[in-house]
């Protein structure tokens, strides 16, 4: 029973990190209606940015984080401008394929730049495990969870109270109305990609601290799709709730059934959700009108 609680807690903590990754998907989908298959690899790039600044250049971790955020913002803006802007108004398959193509470029580029080996990120978090009532949570996982929740909260505040956040929400709910109100919609698309890229980079740093850093880290992004679908493609709250649920289920499967099954759990959840309730727990169902 104690094990159950402990495993659950660790699972929930990892779920918080999933939620942060999922928020990146939701941001892009809400505004631009694109599922970004490159998100996992953008996350991986964020982690490598941090690695470059903190380890290779030996900067202090605060400066490194700031530089990572700036680099990630540039990456997001660049991808949007070069690859996605020309495809505005094209069918969904083209846009999906473009993000798949970008994922492939990023994965290959990471191997070329930083080689395919495993690296460890320089520690950010204190090295003491968190102990709650005799239950033991690994330090990186626990602090990662807190960072993830903090970042999600920060973004939520940003959307609620800043001018650009409001403009972005307006773009998400009605592009034509937003344009007539004087909002620069293409600029909002860029900004969305910038924000998504920043969440991805932060998530990358957290995930990189929990596990090791290597170019196939981006695969986590694909399993987080389960979280996104479960929560609903366009709901930030859904992403948080679903992240916790999926992290918890995954930890329990890993503990009770076996490690190999853990990796396939998100995809089984994904398929089940798609068949039973395609718009997820908190998403808005898609209604087709002629």
């Amino acid at each position, binding site marked *: 029973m104690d094990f159950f609680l402990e495993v659950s807690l660790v699972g929930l903590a990892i779920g918080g990190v999933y939620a942060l990754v999922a928020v990146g998907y939701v941001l892009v989908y809400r505004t631009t209606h694109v599922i970004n298959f490159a998100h996992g690899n953008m996350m991986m790039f964020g982690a490598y940015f941090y690695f470059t600044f903190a380890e290779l250049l030996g900067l202090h971790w605060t400066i490194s984080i700031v530089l990572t955020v700036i680099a990630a913002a540039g990456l997001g803006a660049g991808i949007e401008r070069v*690859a996605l802007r*020309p495809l505005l108004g*094209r069918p969904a398959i083209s846009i999906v394929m473009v993000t*798949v*193509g970008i994922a492939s*470029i990023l994965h290959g*580029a990471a191997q*070329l730049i930083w080689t395919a080996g495993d690296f460890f990120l320089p520690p950010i978090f204190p090295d003491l495990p968190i102990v709650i009532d005799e239950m033991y949570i690994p330090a990186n996982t626990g602090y990662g969870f807190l960072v993830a929740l903090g970042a999600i909260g920060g973004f939520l505040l940003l959307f609620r109270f800043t001018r650009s956040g409001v403009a972005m929400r307006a773009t998400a709910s009605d592009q034509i109305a937003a344009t007539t109100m004087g909002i620069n919609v293409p600029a909002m698309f860029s900004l969305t990609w910038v924000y998504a890229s920043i969440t991805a980079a932060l998530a990358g740093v957290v995930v990189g601290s929990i596990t090791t850093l290597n170019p196939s880290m981006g695969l986590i992004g694909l399993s987080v799709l389960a979280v996104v679908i479960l929560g609903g493609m366009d709901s930030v709250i859904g992403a948080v709730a679903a992240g916790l649920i999926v992290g918890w289920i995954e930890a329990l499967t890993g503990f009770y059934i076996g490690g190999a099954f853990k990796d396939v759990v998100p995809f089984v959840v994904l398929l089940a959700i798609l068949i039973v309730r395609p718009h997820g727990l908190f998403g808005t169902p898609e209604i087709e009108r002629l």
Partner: protein
Amino acid sequence: MLIGNFKERYEADEAIFRTTRSRVWLGIAVALIVAFPFVGNSYHLYMAGLIGINIIAATGINILTGYTGLISLGHAAFMGVGAYTVAWLSNNVGLPFYICLPLGGLVAAAVGVVVGIPSLRIKGLYLAIATLAAQFILGFVFNEWEPVTGGGRGTSLAAAEIGGIVLDTEFELYWLIVVVMVLALLFARNLFRTRVGRAFIAVRDRDISAEVMGINLLRTKLTAFALSSFYAGLAGGLMAYFFKVVSPEQYTFSVSIFMLAAVVVGGMGTILGGILGAIFMTLIPEILGEITQIFGAGAVAMLSSAREVVFGLLIVGFLVFEPRGLAQIWKRIKRVYEIWPFRT
């Protein structure tokens, strides 16, 4: 210069190769395919075999994605199902290859239908995610279901054999692949002149209008999935005989992307596109290999990463600059010489 294309009978108008010019091209192509194995060395034949297999698989994904508009990110898994079925049947039941291959295709088709079932409720991006999930779940099965698949090490199988001839060299396998490929291409080309094939296109263009016109969406989408995965299974089965070993690394997510990329680069929704795309994408790594050799041994180690970057750039580049792919470029070239000396 091609001035007119005059016909007297409906049959002539409905023929696949309608003009003398295209029949001449066909003749040249057949002659090249037949003459090739007597000219090329075993490396050339190996590449030709690989191209043939990829053409079959790309045509399969083209039926689903290019013609029916259902995105599949899990095609490698269907190929894997075909390959493992062929390996298992040939090892445990001892069936000859000409029975194993169609059976492999059929099992893959059955799995494809199961994966296609969500397409009744979801479409577009959601369906792409469902097929992605199928890819990872099937990949997991390939790795873990050891009694049948041999786990991570994979399983090997005996060479195909027909009438006492063992098909174990590139030369013999070339003919097997060419025959299957030609049959598959002819079937696909003719498919889109029938009610079923035209229904696929109608569903792609606007599913609701198609339904209003009396097309059963359920049946059409599942047929597309079944046919497309049958092709994939066939290609996978041929791959099993080609490499004589079946392992999970041959059928990963990146292979799915490779196949989809071939169709995007070649041109979605044309048979020629699948062919051109498969040839192009299979040769690209080889050309890259040649180029990297110039830069010395250090560059060769980076080959696989460079390949990924180039694939990605090709996908993005074609979608941005030439969305209808190589087939469209070919069409444009053809137009230039057809109306020469006039200019377009």
